[in-house]
């Protein structure tokens, strides 16, 4: 009897320890995020103002704001997404819906995406510089930067979309076929709406990656801080601006903090919006 009680006590104890470890890990992760956010708010909030967002940088960014930087960042982001998303998502659709999972073609594509995902961003930057800026003659421009970013985003967008499409129950496809629906009809009406939240999540990851990218843009979209006139103009991305202010501009700490705060705030906003959007899309599909 005593032995049984002992075993019991030990089991309960083990349970508690595991629980404690799990909570500690969660706390640790949250702490890192909270610490970064708190540090950014502490250092940047004083410098942050409406003027900071609306004015172009002056004196290498020590004074003035980040309006032109924001515009350049958004243009680069848009270029990258508009190029990468259609290619990535159609590739994912092809891999999941039209090619057998273990076909040599599928394997080759997946392998190249894995390799591509592991390539350091500086290599993408050099490739983009050689290919888009020099070979295609686009020069240091928002277009070059956006296209380079698009190459970088392909693996993450494709693999998340593929995972999302694969997670859609196979029964939807079989029942749709049994009802005489074509593959396209099943895809448009059932599979894509069901996968929408995962597609949106992948998009978010991509946007996050793109907004935070520095090295790949250094050699492609360039360094110029003034307001861009067109996509062929050079433009400085926000992450690059933060890098430059903190590394190359003495006395640039305050605007660097404020810019970082803006970047993180932007990420949070986009995150929330995309989640809402994905939820709304799914909800609407259910209701109609």
């Amino acid at each position: 009897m005593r032995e049984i009680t002992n075993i019991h006590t030990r089991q309960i104890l083990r349970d508690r320890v595991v629980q404690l470890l799990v909570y500690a890990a969660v706390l640790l992760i949250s702490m890192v995020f909270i610490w970064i956010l708190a540090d950014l708010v502490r250092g940047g909030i004083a410098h942050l103002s409406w003027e900071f967002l609306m004015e172009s940088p002056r004196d290498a960014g020590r004074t003035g704001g980040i309006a032109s930087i924001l515009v350049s960042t958004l243009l680069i982001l848009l270029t990258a997404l508009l190029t990468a998303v259609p290619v990535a998502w159609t590739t994912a659709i092809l891999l999941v819906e039209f090619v057998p999972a273990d076909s040599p073609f599928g394997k080759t594509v997946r392998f190249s995406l894995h390799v591509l995902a592991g390539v350091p961003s500086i290599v993408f930057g050099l490739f983009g510089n050689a290919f888009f800026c020099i070979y295609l003659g686009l020069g240091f421009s928002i277009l070059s930067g956006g296209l380079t970013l698009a190459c970088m985003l392909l693996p993450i967008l494709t693999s998340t979309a593929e995972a999302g499409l694969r997670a859609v129950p196979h029964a939807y496809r079989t029942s749709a076929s049994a009802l005489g629906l074509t593959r396209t009809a099943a895809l448009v009406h059932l599979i894509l709406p069901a996968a929408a939240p995962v597609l949106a999540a992948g998009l978010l990851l991509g946007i996050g990656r793109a907004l935070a990218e520095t090295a790949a843009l250094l050699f492609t979209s360039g360094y110029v801080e003034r307001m861009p006139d067109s996509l062929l103009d050079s433009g400085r991305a926000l992450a690059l601006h933060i890098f430059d202010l903190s590394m190359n501009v003495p006395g640039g700490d305050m605007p660097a903090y404020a810019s970082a705060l803006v970047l993180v705030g932007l990420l949070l906003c986009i995150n929330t919006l995309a989640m809402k959007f994905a939820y709304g899309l799914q909800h609407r599909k259910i209701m109609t």
Partner: protein
Amino acid sequence: MNANQYADKPDAFTLGPLEEGSACCDPQPVIQVRNLSLLYDGKTALDKVTLDIYKGCITALIGPSGCGKTSFLSAINRLTDLIPGCRVTGEILVNNRDIHHPDMHVQSLRRQVGMVFQKPTPFPLSIRRNLSLPLNEHGITNKTEVAAIIGQVLRDVGLWDEVHDRLDASALSLSGGQQQRLCIARALALEPQILLMDEPCSALDPLASGVVEDLICRLRGRYTIVIVTHNLAQARRIANYAAFFWVSGRAGQLIEFGRCQHIFESPSHELTAAYVNGVRG
């Protein structure tokens, strides 16, 4: 067991229990299967099945798991096309037309031959949209017409009273039995001639299972039904014909086919006798 227990099946198409009396309809084959073999990655799953399915009747496919009943069923509406590495040989005629003929339009074949699966598979859409989506895709887009068909099929499956005031609610909010009846309604909406059912009651609780079984009986005569079931009592209650499959080696084979009563009460093959009496399988 009293042999007359099943003699009072409710409608005129009952062939099974009337072994001794005159048949109430002229058995007219609507599906003719000739030498059908099915291979998965070169391994035979179903070996040379030859069988006629009669119009307006319920044909039950019985036998142990893995004997190829479901494969047989999916070959009839060419759902086997979707399985990588699956090869079908032999001939299947539906209404005297070879379903593997290049002129055969697979979408229209599947419209003619509806299918209901073991697990209810409503789409994550509203009840209304579950029914209207296939109709729209088959070119029926007139709203009044679609609404009329939806009302009709929901009444046919006995769901109308339960859901008519919440057609825009998600189909996933229905209970398992209701979902299965919705799936049957969805198949019926396309006005098929033939209905393939792959263990339609096995994922349901006994009560819901009874409701679906009654529904299947009501569909007899209007539709030709081929049903896979592991529930021998159910096969005996509802079917006019029964086909007994067995695994020999690793391939499924059709051992015996005949009127339901014959299969259950005086089977010609000793395997059938052992299976229906619960000695084997």
